[in-house]
Protein backbone atom coordinates (compact mmCIF):
# COMPACT_ATOMS: atom_id res chain seq x y z
CA UNK A 1 0.00 0.00 0.00
CA UNK A 2 1.26 3.47 -0.85
CA UNK A 3 2.27 5.73 2.01
CA UNK A 4 -0.40 8.23 0.90
CA UNK A 5 -3.13 5.56 1.25
CA UNK A 6 -1.84 4.73 4.71
CA UNK A 7 -1.82 8.42 5.60
CA UNK A 8 -5.41 8.72 4.34
CA UNK A 9 -6.47 5.70 6.39
CA UNK A 10 -4.78 7.21 9.46
CA UNK A 11 -6.58 10.50 8.85
CA UNK A 12 -9.96 8.71 8.63
CA UNK A 13 -9.29 6.60 11.72
CA UNK A 14 -8.35 9.63 13.84
CA UNK A 15 -11.42 11.59 12.69
CA UNK A 16 -13.75 8.64 13.22
CA UNK A 17 -12.54 7.81 16.74
CA UNK A 18 -12.53 11.44 17.90
CA UNK A 19 -16.00 12.10 16.54
CA UNK A 20 -17.75 8.93 17.72
CA UNK A 21 -16.05 8.23 21.04
CA UNK A 22 -14.94 11.68 22.19
CA UNK A 23 -17.57 13.89 20.54
CA UNK A 24 -14.68 16.04 19.31
CA UNK A 25 -13.73 17.57 15.98
CA UNK A 26 -10.20 17.70 14.64
CA UNK A 27 -8.95 20.30 12.19
CA UNK A 28 -5.83 19.85 10.03
CA UNK A 29 -2.63 21.66 11.05
CA UNK A 30 0.67 22.31 9.33
CA UNK A 31 3.18 19.78 10.64
CA UNK A 32 6.03 21.97 11.81
CA UNK A 33 8.42 21.17 14.61
CA UNK A 34 7.73 23.46 17.54
CA UNK A 35 9.18 24.06 21.00
CA UNK A 36 9.02 21.35 23.69
CA UNK A 37 5.64 21.03 25.39
CA UNK A 38 4.09 19.02 28.21
CA UNK A 39 2.71 15.96 26.47
CA UNK A 40 1.09 12.62 27.05
CA UNK A 41 2.74 10.02 24.82
CA UNK A 42 1.17 6.62 24.13
CA UNK A 43 2.12 3.74 21.90
CA UNK A 44 0.45 0.50 20.84
CA UNK A 45 2.44 -2.30 19.21
CA UNK A 46 0.71 -4.57 16.74
CA UNK A 47 1.63 -7.96 15.31
CA UNK A 48 0.32 -9.24 12.02
CA UNK A 49 0.95 -8.45 8.41
CA UNK A 50 2.39 -5.89 8.78
CA UNK A 51 3.70 -5.51 12.33
CA UNK A 52 4.59 -2.14 13.78
CA UNK A 53 3.78 0.55 16.28
CA UNK A 54 1.30 3.40 16.52
CA UNK A 55 2.70 6.42 18.36
CA UNK A 56 0.41 9.10 19.72
CA UNK A 57 1.38 12.39 21.36
CA UNK A 58 -1.09 14.93 22.69
CA UNK A 59 -0.72 18.20 24.56
CA UNK A 60 -1.78 17.83 28.18
CA UNK A 61 -4.67 20.37 28.10
CA UNK A 62 -6.11 18.61 25.03
CA UNK A 63 -5.68 15.22 26.72
CA UNK A 64 -7.57 16.41 29.79
CA UNK A 65 -10.37 17.88 27.67
CA UNK A 66 -10.75 14.67 25.64
CA UNK A 67 -10.68 12.51 28.78
CA UNK A 68 -13.36 14.70 30.37
CA UNK A 69 -15.60 14.34 27.31
CA UNK A 70 -15.03 10.58 27.20
CA UNK A 71 -15.84 10.05 30.87
CA UNK A 72 -18.52 12.74 31.19
CA UNK A 73 -16.64 14.52 33.97
CA UNK A 74 -15.12 17.94 34.52
CA UNK A 75 -11.51 18.21 33.32
CA UNK A 76 -10.57 19.77 36.67
CA UNK A 77 -11.80 16.65 38.50
CA UNK A 78 -9.68 14.19 36.52
CA UNK A 79 -6.55 12.62 37.98
CA UNK A 80 -3.42 12.29 35.81
CA UNK A 81 -3.88 8.50 35.90
CA UNK A 82 -7.46 8.71 34.63
CA UNK A 83 -6.38 11.06 31.84
CA UNK A 84 -3.53 8.75 30.89
CA UNK A 85 -5.83 5.71 30.82
CA UNK A 86 -8.23 7.45 28.44
CA UNK A 87 -5.37 8.48 26.14
CA UNK A 88 -4.24 4.85 26.11
CA UNK A 89 -7.74 3.86 25.00
CA UNK A 90 -7.63 6.57 22.34
CA UNK A 91 -4.36 5.15 20.95
CA UNK A 92 -5.78 1.61 21.08
CA UNK A 93 -8.95 2.57 19.21
CA UNK A 94 -7.12 4.57 16.54
CA UNK A 95 -4.71 1.66 16.01
CA UNK A 96 -7.53 -0.90 15.70
CA UNK A 97 -9.57 1.34 13.44
CA UNK A 98 -6.56 2.06 11.22
CA UNK A 99 -5.54 -1.58 10.85
CA UNK A 100 -9.06 -2.62 9.92
CA UNK A 101 -9.02 -0.01 7.14
CA UNK A 102 -5.68 -1.25 5.85
CA UNK A 103 -6.24 -4.99 6.12
CA UNK A 104 -9.77 -6.08 7.05
CA UNK A 105 -9.10 -9.78 6.50
CA UNK A 106 -5.86 -10.09 8.44
CA UNK A 107 -5.83 -10.92 12.14
CA UNK A 108 -3.78 -8.48 14.20
CA UNK A 109 -2.72 -8.74 17.80
CA UNK A 110 -2.53 -5.42 19.65
CA UNK A 111 -0.46 -4.88 22.78
CA UNK A 112 -1.82 -3.01 25.78
CA UNK A 113 -1.23 0.72 25.36
CA UNK A 114 1.80 2.21 27.12
CA UNK A 115 1.29 5.82 28.25
CA UNK A 116 3.64 8.32 29.88
CA UNK A 117 3.88 12.04 30.55
CA UNK A 118 6.87 13.66 28.85
CA UNK A 119 8.22 17.01 27.69
CA UNK A 120 9.17 17.37 24.05
CA UNK A 121 8.11 18.63 20.65
CA UNK A 122 4.74 17.42 19.41
CA UNK A 123 6.01 17.01 15.84
CA UNK A 124 9.33 15.22 15.29
CA UNK A 125 11.49 14.68 12.24
CA UNK A 126 11.42 10.93 12.88
CA UNK A 127 7.61 10.77 12.58
CA UNK A 128 7.58 9.49 8.98
CA UNK A 129 5.08 9.98 6.16
CA UNK A 130 2.18 8.08 7.73
CA UNK A 131 1.45 10.78 10.30
CA UNK A 132 -1.48 12.96 11.21
CA UNK A 133 -1.47 16.27 13.07
CA UNK A 134 -4.84 17.48 14.32
CA UNK A 135 -5.84 20.69 16.04
CA UNK A 136 -8.29 20.15 18.87
CA UNK A 137 -10.21 22.72 20.89
CA UNK A 138 -7.67 22.71 23.73
CA UNK A 139 -4.45 21.75 21.96
CA UNK A 140 -3.17 19.33 19.39
CA UNK A 141 -2.76 15.63 18.66
CA UNK A 142 -0.02 13.86 16.70
CA UNK A 143 -0.41 10.25 15.54
CA UNK A 144 2.24 8.34 13.58
CA UNK A 145 2.37 4.80 12.26
CA UNK A 146 5.64 2.92 11.93
CA UNK A 147 5.56 -0.45 10.12
CA UNK A 148 8.35 -2.98 10.46
CA UNK A 149 7.68 -4.46 7.03
CA UNK A 150 6.26 -3.17 3.77
CA UNK A 151 2.52 -3.38 3.38
CA UNK A 152 1.25 -5.71 0.65
Amino acid at each position, binding site marked *: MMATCLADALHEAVE*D*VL*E*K*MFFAEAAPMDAETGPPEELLAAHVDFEGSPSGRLNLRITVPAARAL*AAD*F*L*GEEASDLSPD*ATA*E*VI*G*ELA*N*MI*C*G*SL*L*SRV*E*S*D*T*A*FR*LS*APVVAFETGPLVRESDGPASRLAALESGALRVCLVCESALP
Partner: protein
Amino acid sequence: MAYRLLIVDDSPAMRTFVRRVIGLSGFDLAACFEAASAEEALDLLRSEWVDAILTDINMPGMGGEELLRCLAADEMLRSIPAIVISTDSTHHRQERLLALGARGYITKPFLPETLRSELETTLGETT
Protein backbone atom coordinates in the same frame (compact mmCIF):
# COMPACT_ATOMS: atom_id res chain seq x y z
CA MET B 1 -39.17 -2.78 29.81
CA ALA B 2 -36.00 -1.92 31.70
CA TYR B 3 -33.01 -4.23 31.43
CA ARG B 4 -30.12 -5.33 33.65
CA LEU B 5 -26.71 -5.26 31.96
CA LEU B 6 -23.20 -6.37 32.82
CA ILE B 7 -20.18 -4.56 31.33
CA VAL B 8 -16.94 -6.58 31.33
CA ASP B 9 -13.75 -4.65 30.53
CA ASP B 10 -10.40 -4.34 32.28
CA SER B 11 -10.37 -0.61 31.53
CA PRO B 12 -12.31 1.45 34.11
CA ALA B 13 -12.43 4.29 31.57
CA MET B 14 -14.05 2.09 28.94
CA ARG B 15 -16.58 0.71 31.44
CA THR B 16 -17.49 4.26 32.42
CA PHE B 17 -17.78 5.24 28.75
CA VAL B 18 -20.01 2.29 27.83
CA ARG B 19 -22.26 2.92 30.83
CA ARG B 20 -22.41 6.59 29.88
CA VAL B 21 -23.33 6.05 26.23
CA ILE B 22 -26.00 3.52 27.18
CA GLY B 23 -27.56 6.34 29.21
CA LEU B 24 -27.04 8.87 26.40
CA SER B 25 -28.67 6.54 23.89
CA GLY B 26 -31.93 6.47 25.83
CA PHE B 27 -31.77 2.72 26.40
CA ASP B 28 -34.05 1.66 29.26
CA LEU B 29 -31.64 0.54 31.96
CA ALA B 30 -32.81 -0.95 35.27
CA ALA B 31 -29.34 -1.84 36.58
CA CYS B 32 -25.80 -1.82 35.24
CA PHE B 33 -23.12 -4.03 36.79
CA GLU B 34 -19.42 -3.85 36.01
CA ALA B 35 -16.64 -6.44 36.09
CA ALA B 36 -12.94 -5.77 35.52
CA SER B 37 -12.25 -9.30 34.30
CA ALA B 38 -13.96 -12.39 32.94
CA GLU B 39 -13.38 -14.13 36.28
CA GLU B 40 -15.06 -11.29 38.14
CA ALA B 41 -17.96 -11.43 35.67
CA LEU B 42 -18.51 -15.13 36.28
CA ASP B 43 -18.41 -14.55 40.06
CA LEU B 44 -20.96 -11.78 39.77
CA LEU B 45 -23.26 -13.88 37.59
CA ARG B 46 -23.55 -16.42 40.42
CA SER B 47 -25.42 -13.84 42.50
CA GLU B 48 -26.96 -11.39 40.00
CA TRP B 49 -29.17 -12.07 37.03
CA VAL B 50 -28.58 -9.89 33.97
CA ASP B 51 -30.39 -9.65 30.66
CA ALA B 52 -27.26 -9.13 28.55
CA ILE B 53 -23.48 -8.95 28.82
CA LEU B 54 -21.25 -6.45 27.00
CA THR B 55 -17.70 -7.75 26.97
CA ASP B 56 -14.26 -6.77 25.76
CA ILE B 57 -12.05 -9.47 24.19
CA ASN B 58 -8.49 -8.66 25.23
CA MET B 59 -8.28 -8.73 29.00
CA PRO B 60 -5.56 -9.94 31.36
CA GLY B 61 -6.14 -13.50 32.57
CA MET B 62 -9.22 -15.10 31.09
CA GLY B 63 -10.13 -13.17 27.93
CA GLY B 64 -13.44 -12.56 26.24
CA GLU B 65 -13.19 -15.74 24.19
CA GLU B 66 -12.82 -17.86 27.30
CA LEU B 67 -15.70 -16.01 28.95
CA LEU B 68 -17.92 -16.93 25.97
CA ARG B 69 -16.85 -20.58 26.29
CA CYS B 70 -17.65 -20.58 30.02
CA LEU B 71 -21.06 -19.04 29.42
CA ALA B 72 -21.87 -21.59 26.72
CA ALA B 73 -20.81 -24.46 28.97
CA ASP B 74 -22.93 -23.32 31.93
CA GLU B 75 -26.54 -24.48 31.93
CA MET B 76 -27.70 -21.45 33.95
CA LEU B 77 -25.76 -18.83 32.05
CA ARG B 78 -25.88 -19.97 28.43
CA SER B 79 -29.16 -18.18 27.77
CA ILE B 80 -27.70 -14.76 28.64
CA PRO B 81 -26.78 -13.05 25.36
CA ALA B 82 -23.27 -11.63 25.16
CA ILE B 83 -22.28 -8.79 22.86
CA VAL B 84 -18.60 -8.23 22.14
CA ILE B 85 -17.21 -4.69 22.04
CA SER B 86 -13.78 -4.58 20.44
CA THR B 87 -11.35 -2.49 18.42
CA ASP B 88 -10.75 -5.57 16.26
CA SER B 89 -13.03 -5.33 13.25
CA THR B 90 -11.44 -8.08 11.18
CA HIS B 91 -13.86 -10.61 9.66
CA HIS B 92 -11.72 -13.41 11.03
CA ARG B 93 -12.18 -12.28 14.64
CA GLN B 94 -15.88 -11.49 14.29
CA GLU B 95 -16.67 -14.87 12.78
CA ARG B 96 -14.66 -16.63 15.47
CA LEU B 97 -16.48 -14.89 18.34
CA LEU B 98 -19.92 -15.31 16.80
CA ALA B 99 -19.12 -19.01 16.40
CA LEU B 100 -18.20 -19.15 20.09
CA GLY B 101 -21.66 -17.89 20.98
CA ALA B 102 -21.49 -14.09 20.90
CA ARG B 103 -24.87 -12.72 19.87
CA GLY B 104 -23.57 -9.40 18.63
CA TYR B 105 -20.34 -7.64 17.77
CA ILE B 106 -19.73 -3.90 18.06
CA THR B 107 -16.54 -2.40 16.72
CA LYS B 108 -14.95 0.59 18.41
CA PRO B 109 -15.41 3.41 17.59
CA PHE B 110 -19.19 3.27 17.76
CA LEU B 111 -22.06 5.71 18.13
CA PRO B 112 -24.43 5.55 21.12
CA GLU B 113 -27.30 4.63 18.78
CA THR B 114 -25.29 1.69 17.42
CA LEU B 115 -24.93 0.29 20.92
CA ARG B 116 -28.60 0.81 21.65
CA SER B 117 -29.65 -0.77 18.36
CA GLU B 118 -27.44 -3.82 18.97
CA LEU B 119 -28.82 -4.21 22.49
CA GLU B 120 -32.42 -3.87 21.36
CA THR B 121 -31.92 -6.33 18.52
CA THR B 122 -30.24 -8.86 20.79
CA LEU B 123 -32.73 -8.50 23.62
CA GLY B 124 -35.65 -8.51 21.21
CA GLU B 125 -34.49 -11.88 19.99
CA THR B 126 -34.27 -13.31 23.49
CA THR B 127 -37.47 -11.95 25.09
